[in-house]
């Protein structure tokens, strides 16, 4: 730490420097060190990465956050670094929570890679198979709901289709293991809608499949984003999705990792993609998550 002792800087002053909050004299001194001093240059680099990661994770607050927004983000290349960090964070959020065992947890990214390669195929196969069965039931339910005048006026979301629920009433001794996949059907949010759709997620839910009923199918491809209304953050995004027949309607199905959700409100935002890549907002599907 010769450089540290010799040149008298610490983590705090490095962060202040990155946020443009040091005096002119100190800025000049650290400017010079940033080019001439190998140790300071590497420390600066590392501190900057950690600062950007902290912002992407929502860990910054107060004056540091304000300085970050007003100073740090006023540069295209620094904004690019933030987007990179957010992409890393999004990847981490996409990971499927493995059961908490008494063994060292896999690194978050490693889990992401693992699941993206191995589990994605397997889980999606399961999802598809499950949905074939589930959709038949859901289509019937949806058609029935549409036939009820009061229900169609309010356009209530068709709520949880959680396999094994029916069994729990007659077989009380031990709670059934948490289902790996839960499926829900949501209708688009309309103005003046009454209560928010509520879904119950048991701890350890592996995947949550949402079938979003379309009012009309006007796009060759769709994308879905999950928004946390409290922070106004997009916390998950899908790849391109195709609409499929769903009874008399069309729907888009999307599978999300269960560990994304906490007991709070969420909104799935559906975007249509035109052939030229132009994206158009289609609808919002709001819901509330509760714990089982």
């Amino acid at each position: 730490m010769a450089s540290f002792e010799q040149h008298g800087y610490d983590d705090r002053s490095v962060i202040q420097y990155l946020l443009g909050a040091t005096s002119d004299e100190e800025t000049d001194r650290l400017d010079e060190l940033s080019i001439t001093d190998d140790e300071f240059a590497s420390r600066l680099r590392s501190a900057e990465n950690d600062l950007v990661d902290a912002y992407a994770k929502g860990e910054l607050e107060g004056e540091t956050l304000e300085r970050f927004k007003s100073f740090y983000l006023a540069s295209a290349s620094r904004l690019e670094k933030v987007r990179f960090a957010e992409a890393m964070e999004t990847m981490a959020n996409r990971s499927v929570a493995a059961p908490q065992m008494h063994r060292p947890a896999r690194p978050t990214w490693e889990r992401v890679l693992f699941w993206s390669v191995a589990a994605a195929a397997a889980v999606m196969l399961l999802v598809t198979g499950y949905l074939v069965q589930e959709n038949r039931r859901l289509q019937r339910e949806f058609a029935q709901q549409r036939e009820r005048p009061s229900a169609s006026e309010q356009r209530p979301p068709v709520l949880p289709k959680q396999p094994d629920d029916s069994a729990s009433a007659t077989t009380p001794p031990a709670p059934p293991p948490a289902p790996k996949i839960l499926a829900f059907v949501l209708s688009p949010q309309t103005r003046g809608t009454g209560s928010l759709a509520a879904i119950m997620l048991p701890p350890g839910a592996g995947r949550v499949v949402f079938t979003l009923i379309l009012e009309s199918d006007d796009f060759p491809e769709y994308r879905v984003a999950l928004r946390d209304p409290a922070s106004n953050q997009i916390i998950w995004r899908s790849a391109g999705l195709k609409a499929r027949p769903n009874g008399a309607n069309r729907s888009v199905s999307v599978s999300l990792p269960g560990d994304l959700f906490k007991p709070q409100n969420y909104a799935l935002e559906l975007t249509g993609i035109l052939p030229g890549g132009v994206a158009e907002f289609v609808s919002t599907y709001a819901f509330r998550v509760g714990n089982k």
Partner: protein
Amino acid sequence: MAAGSQKDWSLSQSAFRRLLSWLDEGVESGGEKYLETRRRLVQYFDRKNCLSPNELADETLNRIARRLAEEGAITGTPPLRYCYIVAKFVFLEYYRRPARAEVSLDGLRNPRDLPSHPAAQADLVADAERRSRCLENCLHKLSPDNRRLILEYYQGDQRTKIDNRRNLASKLQLTMNALSIRACRIRDALEDCVRKCCTGK
């Protein structure tokens, strides 16, 4: 050096080789020292909110290369310190330029403050999706050791992250500083790969 002649002068192969050799200070780095110096200069100009940090970094190195070409050597000042002195002049000239454009914030936005227009939101979503796909591809291009290191290095939040890094440094028998340098290099390469992937280069 007259401004007009600076613009007329162009970097030849031999002038560039001389610049590399001068930066290496007798220890052949295979161009690494040049790349690292240029990177530091770009960051310096970027922190000053200059509009074209890459161009200003190249301008700095060109001026040094030209002096080396004309005078054969630069003595009395260590290379990196000399680079800083020239960079400071380049920055002051840039700053005093009458036509210097202010940094436009129009094209910049806080990624958390999503635009309200749905189409613009969708663009952001599409952009983030492309970036995520690129990141996954780029991670797969890393060597297994580097991939493991970068994944573990940035794992966890706050205190957990620090503890993870200590454990990782111990496992790899590296100092924390050496580990940090290695992780930053891998991250730089990853960022570069993602940038190229996103822009289709």
